[in-house]
């Protein structure tokens, strides 16, 4: 079950793993304090020339903060940063870039209203910029990286995977000697991941040093020369990747053994199907959803797997009223046997459909509002009629209840969502949906960008909902997750569901074959 389906770079493809030992970057006793609380606490870290160094840890462990120090986004409260033996203190990303340190952020920092080419050359503008010249240069550069992105496309029109590719391309373009990738593969397809790993191998061969933050432990084990694990803002271990395995990493990251909670569900325990809750018949939506049909049953987790572009998210957004099917001959959606066509998502919410988005930062919550405020909004969406005032007492009670029920780690339910780790933010998004008491819950990539500890908790929650008789849909690109949780697996390809497997039949090979062929 631990095998990951993304293409793995072979040792030869990645070049010889042994770094030459020349230290490029060193952090000594690095400490960053936020309001007196250490986000990074006395961490020592070193990066060698031509090395891929994976930085692992649960959300909130301090990985991003540590790398942000190097990239000039955050300043050290204590400690020192050395670059090629010289003490430096970059105060801005531009200054870090001038020193040769570039960071590809988890949340893309591209300008959505500008084209890909304009984003690539942002900050390098001349007095006169010939758009055609920029486009040609961008095209040549993207092709040299094997990235198939149209340079004339506005970034807002790109999917998450393509945005990530542009972000990576921009860092490479700036000829950085130290590249920091924060979750670079989370949104890439297996094919794109293959290209990315090849790119990493190329960069490494040129002597570029790479820091690689990822929650995909198998990727880190395959791609990295050394691995450093942080936990609770402190350094736990640094060791050569070949001396580690998944179990050792998980234990180092969370301080406990999680192997049973993640992939522990046996296939023999697949739940029987209850009543048919959702029946989608010949649904069409532009080129994204093409005549797709499937059903979802109560008391089961229906896993939906597919590559990026398979139309999974779009299909379920139509079901949840977030997108509209084709105006003419768009097919039928039946909820408990009744045809439904929602103009707005609130109608779907009132019918008992909850959609937990894959893009929590954009669609999932209001980041500057409190946890309780966000969860209460979910409740308000369910209620009919207008409320002139927000009932603060109700908001507080609802917030406290769900913080407790889902184990959201926050000082208080009044804490702002932006201050939470990715896993806890995801729990807020889930709580916002569950407070609506839905009968059909659609989880879209529920554990993307979530640490292993929170993953186990979210998986337990999904199982619990199905055990309670809810119809649960889980869209996921991570096959071990699909296999571990699903009672039946639907495979989507090119806008339609093309295959169905029972839990007993499903295997990684069968699912991938159906998703590609």
């Amino acid at each position, binding site marked *: 079950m631990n095998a990951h389906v993304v293409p793995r770079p072979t040792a030869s493809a990645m070049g010889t793993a042994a770094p030459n030992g020349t230290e490029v970057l060193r952090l000594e006793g690095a400490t960053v304090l936020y309001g007196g609380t250490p986000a990074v606490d006395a961490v020592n870290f070193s990066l060698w020339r031509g090395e891929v160094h994976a930085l692992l840890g649960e959300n909130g462990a301090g990985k991003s903060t540590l790398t942000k120090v190097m990239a000039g986004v955050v300043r050290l409260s204590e400690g020192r940063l050395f670059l090629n033996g010289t003490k430096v203190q970059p105060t801005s990303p531009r200054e870090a870039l001038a020193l040769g340190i570039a960071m590809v952020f988890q949340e893309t920092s591209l300008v959505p209203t500008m084209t890909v080419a304009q984003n690539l050359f942002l900050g390098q503008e001349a007095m006169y910029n010939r758009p055609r010249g920029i486009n040609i240069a961008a095209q040549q550069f993207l092709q040299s990286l094997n990235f198939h992105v149209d340079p004339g496309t506005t970034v807002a029109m790109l999917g998450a995977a393509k945005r990530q590719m542009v972000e990576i391309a921009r860092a490479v373009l700036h000829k950085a000697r130290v590249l920091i990738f924060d979750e670079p593969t989370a949104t890439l397809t297996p094919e794109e991941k293959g290209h990315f790993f090849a790119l990493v191998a190329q960069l490494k061969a040129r002597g570029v040093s790479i820091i690689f933050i990822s929650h995909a432990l198998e990727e880190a084990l395959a791609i990295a020369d050394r691995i450093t694990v942080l936990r609770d803002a402190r350094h736990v271990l640094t060791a050569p990747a070949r001396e580690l395995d998944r179990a050792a990493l998980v234990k180092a990251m969370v301080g406990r053994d999680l192997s049973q909670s993640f992939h522990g569900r046996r296939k023999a325990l697949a739940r029987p*199907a209850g009543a048919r809750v959702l*029946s989608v*018949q*010949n649904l069409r939506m532009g080129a994204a959803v093409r005549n797709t*049909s499937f*059903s979802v049953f109560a008391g089961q987790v229906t896993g939906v797997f597919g590559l990026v572009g398979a139309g999974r998210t779009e299909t379920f957004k139509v079901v949840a009223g977030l997108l509209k099917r084709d105006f003419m001959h768009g097919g039928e959606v039946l909820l408990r046997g009744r045809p439904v066509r929602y103009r707005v998502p609130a109608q779907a919410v009132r019918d008992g459909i909850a959609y937990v988005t894959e893009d929590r930062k954009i669609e999932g919550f209001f980041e500057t509002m409190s946890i309780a405020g966000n969860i209460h909004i979910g409740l308000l969406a369910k209620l009919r009629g207008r409320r002139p005032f927000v009932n603060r007492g109700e908001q507080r009670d609802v917030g406290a209840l769900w913080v407790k029920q889902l184990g959201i780690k926050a000082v208080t339910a009044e804490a702002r969502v932006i201050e939470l780790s990715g896993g806890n933010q995801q729990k807020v998004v889930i709580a916002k949906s569950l407070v609506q008491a839905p009968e059909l819950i659609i989880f879209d990539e529920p554990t993307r960008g979530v640490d292993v500890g929170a993953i186990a908790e979210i998986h337990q929650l999904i199982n619990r909902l199905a055990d309670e008789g809810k119809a649960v849909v889980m869209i996921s690109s991570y096959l071990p997750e699909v296999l571990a949780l699903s009672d*039946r697996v639907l495979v989507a390809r090119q806008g339609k569901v*093309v295959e169905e497997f029972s839990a007993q039949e499903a295997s990684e090979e069968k699912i991938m074959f159906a998703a590609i062929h």
Partner: protein
Amino acid sequence: MIAALSEWRDRVLGRGDAACTVPVLDGALKPTQVLEAAAPVHLAEAARDLVSDGHRLWLADGPSVIELAPQHDGEVQARELLRCDAPVTALCALPDAQGGGLAVAVGGRELRLVGGRQGGRAWKEADGRPFVAVNAIAASADGLIVSDGSAENGPDDWQRDLMTLGRSGRVVRLDPATGKAQVLAEHLHHAFGVAAHGSAVWVSESWRHRVVALGAGDRPSPVLDHLPGYPSRLTPAARGGWWLTVFACRTQLVEFVLREPAFRSRMIATMPPELWIAPQLRPAQSFLEPLQSGGVKQMGVLKPWAPPRSYGLVIRLDAAGRPTGSLHSRVGGRHHGIVAAVECADALYVLSRGAGCVLRLELAGLEIE
């Protein structure tokens, strides 16, 4: 006025009742090849119905009623029991409490009791309306329940009944002791299959792709609807629940044709029925047959959720009428047009009109409850 406008809007936009959509075969209806792999135990080209009393089987084959006696080796021994003057369209083995013997529908127009205490009694009409397409008979505590598929089209003209959107089916209760007939429901969209369920009667309404329950004085209430095919006979399963046969699956092409009255009337008027764009009981035999748009080849297999005009399907229902499993003969198979499935001893016997044979499946080997 508003309803007419809504209907017009739906026709233009392909929505609501005008949506040419078909439910998918998934979940408990996920296609298998179990039916296709089943062994034929008796060939019967003109067979129409198969019934059992738990120990013996009776088969309506053309004008004959054949008794099939299961043997220890899984084979059956056939013996002609009686011969009528017209094809036998439905059969029922009467329990001893009702006098025993067989109820036989002859030509769809007459129902006769053969053998037993009430032997010789016959019905040709109910409530002043003659029988036209009697296609299923079931015994209940207070008599016989009969489904009469159509008032206009006989049993062989079921395709015409579908293409003319027939809704003249009815369900009748007959009392063998007194000869009284009582109409339980009428204006059904091709009643084909009945079963007594407590005080209610379950009826397959083929053209509306559903099974409905008829209670005392109530309107028919759906037990199981949005089926992906045209349901037919219902028989009880020994371990509780039911076997429901589906004699053909729906396709978007046929659904589309059903929404085009001008095309249908021209097709009916100018083409022989075997070339109509309509469901069939048996797989394609002629290259003249219209294109079967539902066949989509993926991963080297013609996918079953886009079935062509003929298909083989038996659905296992639980006591509440919810599907729990199914047996299939898929695209490219031969055992299509399933019209009866009955349990006898430790096996399930299935009548395939498409292949003209009786199939036998060991109940213990079926991975469905």
